[in-house]
């Protein structure tokens, strides 16, 4: 589709900041309430399309009573976990050498999905994979669930399981406009405009493109793609890339665009948007590994309170045997028993356990 202005992306998925904040608060709140009410946050889709918290029933049936209510994730915790998995999307896409477009589409699906769900309700690790899989399908870059699963050592069923849930949450609005293509448009323009100025100028533009792509990669991990249209994101990326060594007279180019399009928007309005994007990028939370690990533990227990008991049992066992104290940084609990993948100790030290 060529016309962004009539797209569902433009009409339904570019939000006001206050709307975004509200939505994230609401989903977090709902998961918290579920935790108090049912003792777990995990949501499953039943065959009749309804939603259920199966843990609740299992836990109560097994114990006759409910254990202590697990600690919930805060809005900030959720932000950190989401950003962690957005980085993972980029890493997986890179490992598969997927084009930028696939990565951008997958990240936007992921962001849109968690506008309406808390990570406590739907496991972000699984949703992330489904988003990548769906993005490949939509971009006609078909990769089978089996191939994808094999490449990242995951059960293909995990990839497929949530496909309908994600499709529904995206309201079946699947065409996404990525800033990478807008960037290519600007670069094409800029190259044409410096053609007369010789090889160095052309090379400068190409270098600018490379660094702007890195800027967009970073921007994709922030709230900005939910708040601004792709053309503005790409322009802001160019501006950020050009800020230090000023390889290109970007201000003149921006003025040219505003004049040429003769839109109602002024250059200062464009500048304001660029500044706002800079702020969004600057404010974006920094992923700290130790924090992710801590939050991930909380998340697992929220979703699966049975783990809490198992942790205690294990701790008791450990004390009885007293072979050696727990290693520093080792996970305090068994990996999720539902999780069939276990990639050895080496990996677990560098990444939160059970994430891959």
């Amino acid at each position, binding site marked *: 589709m060529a016309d962004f202005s009539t797209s569902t992306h433009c009409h339904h998925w570019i939000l006001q900041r206050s709307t975004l904040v509200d939505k994230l608060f609401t989903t977090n709140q709902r998961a918290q309430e579920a935790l108090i009410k049912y003792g777990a946050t995990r949501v499953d889709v039943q065959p009749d399309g309804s939603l259920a918290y199966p843990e609740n029933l299992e836990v109560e049936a097994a114990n006759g009573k409910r254990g202590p209510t697990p600690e919930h994730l805060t809005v900030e915790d959720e932000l950190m976990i989401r950003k962690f998995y957005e980085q993972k999307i980029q890493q997986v896409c890179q490992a598969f050498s997927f084009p930028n477009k696939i990565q951008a589409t997958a990240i936007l699906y992921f962001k849109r999905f968690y506008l309406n769900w808390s990570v406590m309700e739907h496991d972000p690790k699984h949703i992330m994979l489904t988003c990548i899989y769906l993005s490949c399908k939509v971009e*006609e870059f078909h990769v089978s669930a089996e191939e994808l699963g094999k490449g990242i050592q995951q059960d293909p069923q995990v990839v497929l399981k949530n*496909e309908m849930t994600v499709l529904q949450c995206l309201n079946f609005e699947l065409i996404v406009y990525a800033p990478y293509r807008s960037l290519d448009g600007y670069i094409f323009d800029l190259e044409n405009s410096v053609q007369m100025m010789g090889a160095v100028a052309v090379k400068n533009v190409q270098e600018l493109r490379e660094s702007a792509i890195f800027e967009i990669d970073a921007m994709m991990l922030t709230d900005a793609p939910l708040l601004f249209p792709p053309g503005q994101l790409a322009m802001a990326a160019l501006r950020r890339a050009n800020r230090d060594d000023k390889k290109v007279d970007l201000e003149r180019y921006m003025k040219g665009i505003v004049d040429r399009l003769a839109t109602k928007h002024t250059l200062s309005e464009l500048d304001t948007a660029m500044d706002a994007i800079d702020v969004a990028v600057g404010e974006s939370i920094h992923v700290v590994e130790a924090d992710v690990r801590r939050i991930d533990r909380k998340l697992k227990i929220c979703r699966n309170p049975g783990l809490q008991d198992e942790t205690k049992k294990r701790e008791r066992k450990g004390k009885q045997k007293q072979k050696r104290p727990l290693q520093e940084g080792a996970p305090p609990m068994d990996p999720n028993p539902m999780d069939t993948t276990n990639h050895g100790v080496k990996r677990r030290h560098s990444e939160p356990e059970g994430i891959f």
Partner: protein
Amino acid sequence: MVDPGNPRQRARPAWLQQYELVGKIGEGTYGLVYLARRQQPLHRGVRIAIKKFKQSKEGDGVSPTAIREIMLLRECIHDNIVKLVNVHINYVDMSLYLAFDYAEHDLYEIIRHHREKLSSPINQYTVKSLLWQILNGLNYLHSNWIIHRDLKPSNILVMGDGEEQGVVKIGDFGLARVHQAPLKPLCDNGVVVTIWYRAPELLLGAKHYTSAVDMWAVGCIFAELLTLKPLFQGIEDKNGQNPFQLDQLDKIFKTLGHPTADRWPTLLNLPFWQANRNLIQGRKYENPGLYSIVQQPAKSPAFDLLSKMLEYDPAKRISAAQALDHQYFRTEPLPGRNALVPGSPGEKVVHYPARPVDYSTDFDGSTAPPQSNTNLAPQQQQRGEHMMQVPAMHQPLHLPAIQRMPQNNMNNFSSVNQQGRRKEPDSGNQNYNNYQPLNKSRRM
């Protein structure tokens, strides 16, 4: 956006209750198409076509056909493009239900009615209005970088009685795709376009192609509207993946003459042209006779437009935008919005038959057993049988009163399926998951 709401309050699939099933109106490898009536207060009784996509082949989730149709139609809003009203998920069998505005007619049925029942051509106003609206919809698609890739008479819908009477709707986007900055070559999608409407560059194995393939198909449809017969009725070779379709090319060459490198410079680069030179060039056709087939004077605007659509070189073939601007549409009778009812009084209005409906099929695709040995009144009988067919999950569905059309309509339907429908071949297999080529071409 979807609001998950209170999970406890969503025990029943409410969407199923929005529709009252009337019957089955079509099927293909993707699944079935049903006719239903809406139940919501604001739209009560409004007819809707519901396309059910079966769960895809083993292990690859929602079929690419369904994804394409949904993602493109979610974005497309145009008078001449079929309107996707809603998408529903049936979690029982992981199938998708797409709800479209219902169109009573399609060009396949309209042409057949003239050929088999009336034995008279479609009037000029109707032909011109239909063509103009097809081009108008196509121009919208092409300017949004969408190629339809499966235009044929049965995919060109025409609205029945109501506010939009006689308005054309291009339907079935199961093969359509965006071709702006493709990540992989288009030929990766495998064979596209039903063979009779397939452009020569595709038949000659082009690896890359453009929206011009749709214009070739429109040319074929235009000729069919004029003559009531498919223009190039080749016999499809169904061996292997994308085999060389000699018979189809031969039918085209017989009518249009052989293409030459002079008229079509990139012809020499096409794989099948090189590989099958002897076969192709073996028979020489000296007297191309398109105008005699379509019985139009060689100098008429209609013939001029048709021959520009059937231009061999896709780069020179007329575009949808150019075609809309053609002299043909500026000469009397001028095209109109209601293609079925001419603006000028005194013209005879043809009443086309309603779409045949199979009343014995349930929403899950099962067919009710034959109703012979009970004493129930027909209506009760039908209901009873349906209830037996409906699994527990489906119970919220209120079954419709089914006695709207006489029984012999059913017989019509099955004979149509067995005879009429077979005549129009299907779009090729889609290369994904080794889909079988479709056996039944009835879509929407």
